């Protein structure tokens, strides 16, 4: 037997007596009988870290000396919603090129080599509604790292051979759009939830990617990558004032027009369009004959996270299908019936436009209809039966007791605050984190029923099924449920992966 307890030596005497006392206590038969030490927790306050830089952006700066590392993330007001028509895919391609297309005096190859040699992690990407450029590196290399960030943010080179390479890679990925049924499900669910013409459903095509050139990327970058469109999160091994001074220098030395495309004015982006269109209720079926497991999504119109019902919606959804094993959908579809590995619901609340309620699962083709009928039943039940006090209380305790984990690391804290600033939540609701637990605590079982009735309207349900049509329609002899019991079935054709047009 091996006893390596060097750290424990100092307290050895205390430990032995304590152990004797404790061993005398019987172990209770239920964990509820354990008395836990008190636990007080207050979340960090954004004001303690918020710095309005003279050079424009707001930064959240949090020193953290435990490891010799520095983390920087720059959030940028840019996104897919700003892509010009016919240039779908430009945002994503531009984000990739910031990281991989060279910057400042360095070619793409030099930049890659230097970042790799420093053992640094440099990332850049542009998504639907935001761009991020981030760097994690050893603190001894901080100045060099900030120099690299400066170049990536303000002087990307969009090297021609890297644009050509990336376009080839994107076109090759595009060929695989219909290969995996989960990809088909995700895209079709979004078309049904937000409409064919909603900007987030403007997928790149072989034509749009082929048409993009270096000037497109350079203009797109130049137009939106101005310090006034940035919010910054910094944490790690540094002195706060020193870091603030370095950031001031970084963003004030943002240079003016130096090449032709810089004639384009830099502007604050327009509001994100919210013109979503929700599909007619019913069952939508995409035939993917070569898989033996069907994927199902239940979709309903959603809410914004600033909706006063948001907190009741969080708890109601947690009980229905958001709370993992203890939720109604998981409990019935998975653990009672063994019909699916994954069964869930989500009701996130949108920041810029209402995000839908979605429930889903995957089951073998022939039990798809039966499992779907259970999910629908559970959704309807939420609108007719008031949830138990104990259930609501469990959902609240889970939320409140795990809350401190939200801010587990300094890097998470800086990024949460910076992202709140970016989304406008800090301006709109500055005490959000301080008050979140009491807002959750205030929700009643009546509230849960009220929001379920209000938002989970069975007559509006859009149900998407992707899988082997023949087997799914055949059903399972032990469970005489047919897919048509859930609504009128509309068959959706697969889309051509290169054009996203429905195939005949």
């Amino acid at each position, binding site marked *: 037997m091996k006893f390596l307890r060097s750290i424990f030596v100092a307290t050895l005497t205390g430990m032995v007596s304590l152990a004797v006392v404790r061993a005398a206590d019987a*172990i209770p038969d239920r964990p509820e009988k354990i008395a836990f030490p008190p*636990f007080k927790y207050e979340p960090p306050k954004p004001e303690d870290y918020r710095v309005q830089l003279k050079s424009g952006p707001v930064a959240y700066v949090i020193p953290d000396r435990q490891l010799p590392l520095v983390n920087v993330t720059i959030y940028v007001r840019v996104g897919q919603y700003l892509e010009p028509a016919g240039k779908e895919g430009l945002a994503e391609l531009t984000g990739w090129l910031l990281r991989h297309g060279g910057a400042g005096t360095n070619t793409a190859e030099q930049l890659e080599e230097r970042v*790799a040699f420093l053992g640094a992690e440099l990332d850049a990407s542009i998504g639907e509604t935001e761009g991020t450029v981030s760097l994690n590196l050893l603190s001894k290399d901080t100045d060099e790292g900030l120099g690299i960030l400066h170049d990536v943010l303000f002087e990307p080179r969009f090297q021609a051979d890297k644009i050509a390479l990336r376009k080839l890679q994107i076109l090759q990925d595009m060929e695989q759009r219909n290969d995996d049924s989960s990809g088909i499900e995700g895209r079709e669910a979004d078309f049904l939830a937000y409409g064919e013409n909603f900007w987030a459903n403007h997928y790149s095509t072989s034509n749009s990617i082929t048409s993009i050139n270096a000037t497109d990327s350079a203009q797109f970058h130049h137009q939106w990558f101005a310090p006034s469109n940035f919010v910054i999160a910094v944490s790690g091994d540094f002195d706060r004032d020193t870091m603030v001074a370095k950031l001031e220098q970084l963003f004030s030395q943002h240079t003016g027009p130096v090449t032709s495309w810089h004639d384009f004015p830099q502007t604050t982006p327009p509001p994100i369009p919210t013109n979503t269109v929700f599909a007619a209720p019913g069952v939508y079926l995409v035939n993917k004959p*070569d*898989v033996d*497991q069907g994927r199902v999504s239940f979709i309903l119109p959603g809410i914004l996270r600033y909706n006063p019902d948001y907190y009741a919606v969080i708890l109601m959804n947690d009980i229905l299908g958001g709370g993992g094993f203890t939720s109604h959908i998981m409990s019935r579809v998975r653990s009672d019936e063994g019909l699916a590995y994954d069964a869930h619901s989500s009701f996130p609340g949108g920041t810029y436009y209402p995000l839908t309620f979605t429930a889903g699962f995957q089951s073998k083709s022939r039990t798809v209809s039966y499992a779907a009928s259970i999910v629908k039943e559970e959704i309807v039940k939420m609108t007719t039966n008031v949830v138990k006090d104990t259930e609501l209380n469990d959902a609240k*305790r889970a939320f409140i007791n*795990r809350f401190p984990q939200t801010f587990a*690391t300094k890097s998470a804290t800086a990024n949460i605050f910076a992202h709140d600033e970016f989304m406008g939540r800090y301006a709109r609701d500055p005490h959000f984190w301080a008050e979140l637990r009491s807002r959750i605590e205030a929700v009643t079982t009546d509230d849960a029923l009220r929001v379920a009735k209000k938002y989970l309207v069975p007559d509006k349900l859009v149900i998407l099924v992707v899988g082997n049509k023949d087997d799914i329609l055949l059903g399972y002899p032990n469970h005489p449920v047919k897919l048509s019991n859930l609504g009128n079935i509309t068959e959706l054709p697969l889309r051509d992966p*290169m054009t996203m047009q429905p195939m005949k």
Partner: protein
Amino acid sequence: MQMTIRRWIFLPVFMAALSLFAQDVPVVEETLTNGMRILFVERHDEPAIAGGWVAHVGSSNEKTGSTGIAHLFEHMMFKGTTTIGTTDYAKDQEILDQQEKVRDEMRAEEAKMRVMLRHGEIDDLLKPENWTPHYKELQKQFQQLVDEERKVLAKNEFDRIYRSAGATGMNAWTSPDMTVYFESVPANKLELWCWMESERIYHSVRREFYSERDVVFEERRMRTDSPPTGLLEEAFNAMFWESMPYSWPTLGWPSDIPAISKKQADQFFATYYSPQNITLVIVGDFVPAQADAMVKKYFERIPRGTNAIPDVNTLEMKQPGEKRLNGEADTNPQVDIYWHTVPFGHKDSYALEILSQILSTRTGRLYKNLVLGSGVASDAFARQDSLKWAGDFNAGGEASDGHTPGEVEQGVYNEIDKLKNEDIPPEELQKVKNNFAADQYRRLDSNMSILMNLLVNDGDGDWHEINNFGPKIQAVTAADVRRVANEYFPKENRAVATFTRKTSAAPAKDKEAQ
């Protein structure tokens, strides 16, 4: 381009060579009287404690006929105890016994249906239309017992207790070599963790066994059957490992999962979940003396197991010739190459790790020469995978449009040949070492990350590797890399899979109006 600032310039890389070593993780190890080991790491950066344990058992300890049992067992560990998960333990046990009797009859009937299958009278054991009338009758009987049991079940109570106490990240996974359970609890709930984890080892009850078996089969459909190359990859793995029990999937063969019995699971538990086969790891905000006393109080009461824990004594056969698999699927053309190398802790594993990084990453040789250079590939990768009992090296990539998997394959061989014939330049070696060194810090940034590192290293054979790996990597020389390149990459030591797109499923290209 006009430059207004230039705060940094590129030094010649070899001048800036780093020689840093990450700090050690301060681990305190202890062994309880029943043989269970505990690793403590005190850390006060988060108001929480990450706790987990590794059972030194995985799919490589299985036998054919019940492959997948280690993973199914992992699922069963969430089903509760004698007091958690039921409102009436005696009644629950009574029903479970009755269920087993019906299941014994069902197994006899399943044996008959397998005869029918072998004789070609039915085509698929899972198809409801093929089940005998007696089997369907037994299913109904079983379902009645399930309905009866539900009256005394406290559904998913184990999860509910943890969740409402503020636990996060509660999960588990199974690999060929180990089964790992973990979660994070608020700093004042260490005693809850000790209660829950010791109870589920000491007093576990495997209720809802057969519906969970169906869940696992759905998991297999999701992970293996549905992804376009899932079944081909499974077949390739089975072809690569000849004698080692790594040849079957951790999820189990589809014929085995529905055949695993509760009795087999009970026997499996008795052997592999005994205290001397388990290591606990606790990382976070605790007072050492109190934590030590508490862990002893809860875990030392579990009696040492009486069964000897069998070692995996099979060695992989030396491969006498190259193996090849050509598959068609809904996927872009690609190549996947495996070589037999070395297991965890082998003295050559560090040079092979370096070699893999020389080839992979965006500044690695495969990307530079196959993606950017010849352009035969659109992406490429390489990795050394040191498992507990054996190891492999894996490289491959996707062919660019107009190129073939064969060209990518040849490109990989060309790069390995260069490593056989020429030393890596010092700056290239240093670049790779610098990345390993920085990662040695990054893995220390949260309780959960430290916990996982310790669990996996202990599961692989020695937790000390968390502190020894870094220095061993830094000690690798260019000569070491050249030596392992020559030793492990002969043609007869490799297996090659090429995947091409099914012709019927070719995507409609060039259809778009230009």
